[in-house]
């Protein structure tokens, strides 16, 4: 069964009397464990699509089945719950919370799911070690490099063992060396069977994935299936 399944998904913004269609008729199916890249020129709707897939945004029309469940008509609380335990977000600008240290940042999604303190602390430690930050658990985000921050963000994204991991230009703010670190972590996640959807401008990143979806003006222009 496909993890992501959209039917004629549309997103339009009402700007005064003018109806701006940002995404139109997106039919997308992504299988469990697939590694997918979304590409396209700026303004083509990549982030908008990712937000819809991540249940941060509601479609104007169309249906979205996440893990077999129709989420296009859920209310805010239910969507929050799904964001917390089904979806992991990785942002271009890391988006860690400044007043919290590494461990606390990683713990946060587990906290919102009501996990007990001892469990979440143990898991956060484990995840920090997994992304190579076992020795920096007490550091606050501004004491870390961009690459390190993004690794914390990845640890946070996978804390609740989500069904899909969404990354919006995860290496966009990084130099190539730390970008490569991040990409290898994503590769690892893929190896472990996670479903990954990555928005990128970078052909090289796209080439690591199994499938590249090109967006143009809010529509799927073409799809490329990579060999691997």
């Amino acid at each position, binding site marked *: 069964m496909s993890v992501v399944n959209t039917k004629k998904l549309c997103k339009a913004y009402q700007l005064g009397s003018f109806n701006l269609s940002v995404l139109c008729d997106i039919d997308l199916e992504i299988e469990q464990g697939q590694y997918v890249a979304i590409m396209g020129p700026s303004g083509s709707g990549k982030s908008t699509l990712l*937000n819809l897939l*991540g249940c*941060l*945004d509601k479609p104007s029309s169309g249906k979205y089945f996440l893990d077999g469940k129709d989420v296009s008509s859920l209310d*805010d*609380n239910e969507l*929050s*719950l799904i*964001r*917390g*335990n089904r979806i992991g*977000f990785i*942002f271009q600008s890391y*988006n*860690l*919370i*400044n*007043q*919290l240290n590494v461990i606390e940042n990683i713990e*946060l*999604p587990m*906290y*919102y*799911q*009501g996990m*007990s*303190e001892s469990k979440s602390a143990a898991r956060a430690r484990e995840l920090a070690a997994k992304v190579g930050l076992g020795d920096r658990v007490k550091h606050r985000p501004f004491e870390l490099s961009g690459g390190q921050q993004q690794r914390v963000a990845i640890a*946070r*994204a996978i804390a*609740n063992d989500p069904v899909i991991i969404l990354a919006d230009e995860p290496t966009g703010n990084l130099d190539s060396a730390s970008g490569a670190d991040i990409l290898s972590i994503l590769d690892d996640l893929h190896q472990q069977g996670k479903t990954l959807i990555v928005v990128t401008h970078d052909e090289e990143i796209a080439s690591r994935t199994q499938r590249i979806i090109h967006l143009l003006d809010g529509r799927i222009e073409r799809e490329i299936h990579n060999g691997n």
Partner: protein
Amino acid sequence: MLLFRLKHTIELGAKSLWMHRLRSSLTILGVVFGVCSVIAMLAIGEGASRQAQDSIEKLGSRNIIIETVKPPEQQKDSGNVEKVRNYGLTYSDAESIRNTLKSVEVAVPVRIISQAARYNSRKVAVNVLGTVPWYEEVSSIKIIDGRFLSAIDLKHQLAVCVVDEQVARKLFTFDDPIGLDVKIQGYYYRVVGITGKSVDSEMTDAFSDSKVVSKSNGGVIGNIYVPITTAKCRFSEFSFQMSGNSRNAERVELQKIIIKVGSNEEVLPTRDVLDSLLSRLHKKQDYRIVVPLELLRQAAQTRRIFSIVLGSIAAISLLVGGIGIMNIMLATVSERTREIGIRRAIGARKWDIIIQFLSETLMLTLVGGILGIVLGTFIPFLVTHFGHMPTVITPISLILAFGISVGIGIIFGLYPACRAANMDPIKSLRHE
């Protein structure tokens, strides 16, 4: 579980507040002053009303006090002739009251003469009160040594006296006054008893405090009680004053008549009868009727108004504090828009966000409330110490102030918190 969430929320709130130490402490200060002023105002109000209450109760709730007042000066028809003005209460007034009013249990005539009392080489200014043995029944004085005036003293016009504590201390210092003689206007009086501190037998105006009275009395330190019969034959009822080039003499028999009735209910009807009786007996308005019970009721009324006024002043300062909090929280929310977006993206419900910001506000107001209570219990002491005003801190005022500060936290924290919770996650994430 719940405990953990609570701990987590508090920890998180504390961290965020700590990030903006200056801002948080300034906000707290607003609440501190608000709470503190509520407590201080209530304490001052309560202190003032208790004091009024106490002094009125000392006058006796079943008492009616008739005082001599100087009638308004009539236009003098003759220029500088020596002239005697007769006014005020008389012995016959006391007699008529005793005879005509059935509800009256006792009627106590009182003469007050300001004099110097001497013992050995010492001399103090006192009020000599000529009165009757049953004066005890209408006043709050207590005999602490010896006895009060007796019927025999009265009947035989004996030269005895009872001094109060202040006089005993000032005049006799280390000697035991009982059995000693005090000299007043050339006559000696044997001290037969000592009463407790007579705060202000002069005082019928419930709202002036004892210090003011003693100042206006020209250094009078206390009372000496003598039988009224003795006073009548030893002290002149005349007093002389120079005004302009005319010498005026005044004659006043009694300064006061204190009446006690059987019950509180009889006080007001008796007052009315008394009024009509005296207005028949006196052509001039040279007396005044004071009803402590009425004063007591007026005091209660005044106290209510006082409390309302003070309360609203304090409430306004709390309101200002509350608005300050709201202002800061709104600024905090918009400053942390991105953080809110992040939290929403990783699974926080609206409710979680509300709790987060509301608890931050509550922490500010709680800390402010506690500090306010500490400061607020301290300030009344300063007021009492330096301002010489009585203050009473009631537990209810502490609870009230604390409750209000928490209430302010919830009321003024709710709007910013809801605003935070209702922000669109995507827009918040884009926010810089």
